[in-house]
């Protein structure tokens, strides 16, 4: 058997786990591993400018490909800087393996230089973690880490490796396990057949059904099954923020996103539905609004691979634990075998009702936001322009805030894994590094990072990484010169007292900033030039382009669920109009 040092084993095991790119930042405790990286070419390391970005980039890689993302950081500050990224991945169930250097074994617990208890500090935000105690354990632990991260309900796994375990002078036999088996971890895949039968029966009896699908459908590669089932029963489909793209966004059966800033028709249809088929969604508080008033007349069928997601906030009438693709396929088969259909007349009435809601308050009609009137650019128009310029075929990452909601509402995603955003944790600074991960995984694809002047400054240092690795991301900065979503809440609930949501003329010149990093900056201030400049942006295929677009400062995101104490049908539709 081949003898390798601990550092070499780390890299070899990553290669054997299928890793092509690892994002990271070196430091003392990780130097043996970095030296092993230097002496091979199978695993390419990408040097970021801050560890948070390394995790977001690996996260973006994973979200856009379905593969497990890989990160390498050093101990202490390297590890703590990675925490925000790990928490982001955990909240959205993104599979990552984060390898952190640790101080040598005999120094652990002595408050050594750059020591932090990484396993302890990350415990609440990881699916699992390992502290490797011996070089002989490394290969097995890394294999387990990849298996755990990517199976069942995915999530990040931390592997903390003390420096002396990677000592180049200590060589041990290397063997990567062919198969990983963990006796205490056996994720469910097949759903309970009796429950599936009950679900079919309930669905067939529905008069006002709706399919509510979430990020689990994308993570579980179940988009085609979801689409097939939806077509089979002709039910309206709504996606959560995390689920956009699981069902084609431009399909007439799609009623838009639901929840806090969901469409009028999606939220209203949910409220009035008699059967809700929830797939890979977790009844998040941004979706349900007041749980006591949630969809009063609905029978809820809930499919999820994670039993703890079922009946956590809303009781499921028919819970089905299983992988979304497997369960949905079983449902399709049973439905086809039964040869039965939903009541045609009831469904015709239901669609008539939904289309009325659509016509009245749908956000895709121009009347939902004021026309620009020639000069002022509405943020919604920017997203529509982006959609046109990219033919709806881009990967779109976003940061967090108003721009995120506008992108989710107005860019119609027809495929899964195209919309990449931090939904659960809501991490500002996610967009740019995530876009790097996407671009590296898809070198020929159009990758746009929709951001705001607030969020982009949280990881703007990564413009330098884009230069080093030639990652031609297009940054669409919706510049409203304020922390827009904070300001919106301050408008609505704090009598427009803008506490710390304005910058008082301290914003940088983003054009000069982009140029300083060797990129192209394009400033857009007039509506008339928007489409033309957007075209220009995407014509510069090999360059990072920073589009600094000045948008209407006063615009709010609507619809918006009324809180507190509102149900899903209680929405603000504009600054003055309420349902």
């Amino acid at each position, binding site marked *: 058997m081949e003898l390798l040092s601990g550092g070499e084993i780390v890299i070899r095991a990553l290669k054997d786990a299928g890793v092509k790119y690892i994002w990271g930042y070196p430091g003392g405790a990780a130097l043996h591993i970095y030296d092993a990286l230097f002496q091979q070419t199978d695993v390419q390391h990408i040097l970021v400018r801050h560890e948070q970005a390394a995790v977001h980039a690996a996260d973006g890689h994973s979200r856009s490909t379905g593969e497990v993302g890989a990160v390498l950081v050093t101990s202490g500050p390297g590890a703590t800087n990675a925490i925000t990224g790990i928490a982001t991945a955990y909240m959205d169930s993104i599979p990552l393996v984060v390898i952190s250097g640790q101080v040598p074994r005999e120094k652990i617990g002595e408050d050594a230089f750059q020591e932090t208890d990484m396993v302890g500090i990350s*415990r609440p935000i990881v*699916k*699992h*973690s390992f502290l490797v105690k011996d070089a002989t354990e490394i290969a097995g632990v890394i294999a387990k880490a990849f298996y755990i991260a990517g199976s069942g309900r995915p999530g990040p796994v931390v592997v903390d490796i003390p420096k002396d375990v990677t000592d180049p002078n200590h060589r041990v036999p290397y063997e990567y396990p062919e198969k990983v088996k963990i006796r*205490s971890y056996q994720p469910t895949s097949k759903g309970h057949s009796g429950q599936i039968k009950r679900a079919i029966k309930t669905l067939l009896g529905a008069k006002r059904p709706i399919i509510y699908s979430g990020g689990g459908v994308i993570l579980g590669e179940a988009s085609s099954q979801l689409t097939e089932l939806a077509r089979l029963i002709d039910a309206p489909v709504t996606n959560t923020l995390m689920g956009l793209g699981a069902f084609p966004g431009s399909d007439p059966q799609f009623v838009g996103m639901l929840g806090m800033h969901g469409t009028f028709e999606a939220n209203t249809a949910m409220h009035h539905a008699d059967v809700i088929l929830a797939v890979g969604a977790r009844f998040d508080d941004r979706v349900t609004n007041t749980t006591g008033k949630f969809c009063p007349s609905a029978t809820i069928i809930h499919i999820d691979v*994670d*039993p*703890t997601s079922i*009946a956590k906030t809303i009781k499921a009438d028919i819970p089905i634990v299983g992988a979304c693709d497997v369960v949905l396929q079983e449902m399709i088969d049973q439905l086809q075998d039964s040869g039965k259909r939903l009541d045609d007349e009831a469904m015709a009435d239901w669609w008539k009702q939904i289309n009325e809601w659509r016509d009245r308050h749908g956000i895709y009609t121009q009347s939902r936001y004021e026309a620009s009137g020639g000069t002022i650019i509405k943020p919604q128009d920017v997203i529509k322009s982006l959609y046109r310029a990219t033919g709806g075929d881009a990967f779109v990452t976003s940061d967090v805030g108003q721009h995120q909601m506008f992108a989710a509402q107005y860019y119609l995603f027809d495929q899964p894994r195209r919309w990449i955003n931090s939904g659960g944790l809501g991490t500002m600074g996610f967009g740019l590094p995530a876009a790097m991960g996407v671009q590296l995984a898809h070198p020929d694809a159009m990758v746009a990072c929709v951001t705001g002047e607030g969020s982009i400054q949280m990881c703007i240092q990564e413009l330098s990484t884009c230069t080093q690795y030639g990652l031609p991301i297009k940054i669409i900065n919706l510049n409203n010169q304020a922390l827009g979503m904070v300001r919106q809440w301050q408008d609505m609930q704090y009598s427009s007292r803008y506490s710390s949501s304005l910058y008082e003329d301290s914003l940088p010149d983003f054009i000069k900033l982009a140029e300083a990093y060797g990129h192209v900056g394009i400033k857009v201030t007039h509506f008339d030039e928007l489409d033309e400049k957007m075209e220009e942006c995407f014509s510069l295929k090999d360059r990072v382009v920073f589009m600094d677009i000045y948008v209407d400062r006063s615009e709010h995101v609507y619809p918006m669920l009324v809180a507190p104490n509102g149900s899903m049908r209680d929405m603000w539709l504009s600054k003055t109009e309420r349902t």
Partner: protein
Amino acid sequence: MRRIISVLMENEPGALSRVVGLFSQRGYNIDTLTVAPTDDQTLSRLTLTTHGNDQVIEQITKHLHKLIDVVKVVDLTEGPHIERELMLLKVKASGPHRAEIKRCVDIFRGQIIDVSTHAYTVQIVGNSDKLDAFIQAIAGAEILEVVRSGVSGLSRGEKALRL
């Protein structure tokens, strides 16, 4: 409602902290906790008592099950079960109290396991109510210190929590 949850888990460093962390993260309470390796040295058995309504307990058991180190979880209070707790109690025993405490210990089928001129150390085993009752019974005496093991339990009959 009080529940006794029994957990079979890998005897690995960090496993206990994950269980405890789960409770603190999600705002659940642990009333008592006891853990030790089983006859199979690779496994530990952890018993904890907690309280909550059915929905909370269901979430707790599901979350416990989700921990990678956890092999099996059972709520003992769902069926017939036996529970025991051990208490060591040091009490001042001088003058007329000395004989009275001895009588009480006998009534509760406890044992005096250490004796000094002015104190007894008493060992009592039983369910938690019995231990509470003993403390009540010797309320007149001066208790110096008390240590309780936390509840351990098994289900009745042939049902067993094993691999």
